[in-house]
């Protein structure tokens, strides 16, 4: 697991290789840490985590601004509400 600052207000959370529940827990913790308006780019490859992260964002109001998917790898940009 890696959490890095990519640019001003943008962070990358790399949880490739992790299975449930790790990606969604790490995403929750990362979003809790950053400031409103900042973006966390979550990189994961466990499809079922995506479903949980999407519902979690729907509940919290955090916005998934971009979803990319290629060869079983997902990159989601989530903007904290």
């Amino acid at each position, binding site marked *: *697991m*890696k*959490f*890095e*600052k990519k640019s001003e207000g943008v962070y990358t959370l790399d949880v490739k*290789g*992790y*299975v*449930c*529940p*790790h990606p*969604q*827990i*790490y*995403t*929750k*913790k*990362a979003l809790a*840490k*950053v*400031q409103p308006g900042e973006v966390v780019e979550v990189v994961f*490859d*466990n*499809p*079922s985590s*995506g*479903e*949980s*992260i999407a*519902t*979690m964002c*729907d*509940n*919290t*109001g955090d916005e998934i601004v971009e979803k990319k*998917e*290629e*060869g*079983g*790898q997902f990159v989601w940009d989530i903007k904290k509400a």
Partner: protein
Amino acid sequence: MDNGERKRQLWALGILGFFGILSIGAYAVNEYFIYIAVYIWFGFIYGMCLQYGRFCFSSAFRDLFAVGVPRMFVGIMIATVLFGAVGAVVSVSGMSTFHAAPTSMHAIVAGIVFGVGMVFAGGCASGSLYKTGEGNGSALLVVLSLSTTIALFAPAGGFLNKLVPQSWNESAVAKGLPESINAGDGWLDQYLAGFIWDQPIITYAGMFGMSDQSVAGAFFGNLLVGVVIPSAILLAVVYIFWSRRSYIKKREKAGITGMTFKDEAGGYWTMIMASRRTAIAGLILGIAAGLQMLVTQGLRIKFGVKNVGTIFERLGYDSGLSVNGTVFDPGYWYVTTQEGQWMGWVFNKLGAENMDNIYFGFANGIPNPLINAPGWMSIALIGGAAVMALLHNEFKFKKPTLELATWAIVGGILMGIGSRLGLGCNVGAFFVRVSQGDASGWLFGVGMTAGAYIGVKFFNWWTARKMEKEFAGMEL
């Protein structure tokens, strides 16, 4: 269509073709083998649905506590109610293959052990199978760990015998089992024959003095009282504690204030339909699980057998049958015992004497994996999930890290033990039993919820530690 997509489609077609040719070939050898083909195709359907809906029982309980997400809990309740409805019809028609299990507090204890295990493993038993179909190495490790644990735990005696209460030993020996079964030796044997078999079998229909096969018993007792009402109440609780606040927030954002009863009902429905994929998967799984009972029982009637072991005997395959001439043949969706049999068969071929116990020797046998019907259901489940993952470009080989391999092995061990204590996993001991009005099902569910809570608490602590290291030095 790009090259990669064509390749994935060819692989998917290849897997489908493999099971198709296998089914037709088996039928061509002998019509009896259609019995195994039925298991294969229901397993295939389960695998496709599980992957499509990202349907994992583990996350139903875990994600509520971990990230406040109720989608999987909703999906499982949908599947349970539908399976219950189809099951009620099947019961009344006299075609049910279901047998209720003994009910006592053991189901809660078993559920706790299993619940902790499934959170550690990253998926329940079926979830690990379907994720294996997605190419996930950790999930495969879970399946191997669970299988090995069951195969070792079922016949284990030695120092474990010292942990058996005297009353269990006496009760087990007094059952007068066949000579080849040493019920007084082995922890699981004495637990089963000395404790579990002495517990009452309780169904909701039975509580009202009705038979499970009567219309009133099946629809009022087992379906309405045992499944629909508890499911609706649980969904209402989940709505109030996990979903209502965000629903109100969204309404306020849209400039709507105040909540009437109609609005609450709308919020409840919105929660149920929040994940279309999960809801659709739950719907198909529920109906398919009920239909499997109907089709299997139809074949049993056609062939004049009560267990596939009789078919094997007729065909001359008597190796690995239990002392009763039976093998594991639930006639419905069930996971863990067939996986335990795979490793049990390997150990047996390596020289282990593992047929003198109740689990293998008296009840389930250890058939050759090539003719293990529920075993093929599990293999086909992996295949169905692989096909779905390939078609959606979600298949990816993932080698487990040391950290994930550790959790997978620990989780598999706990799920293996929990499933034997509870006489089934999240599917056999919870989903199937709840749906069919067996009182022990909800008890196992209570235990699984508690176990999931413990597992999540642990992982919250573990991930917080790792995140703090990443946050260190950052201005956040």
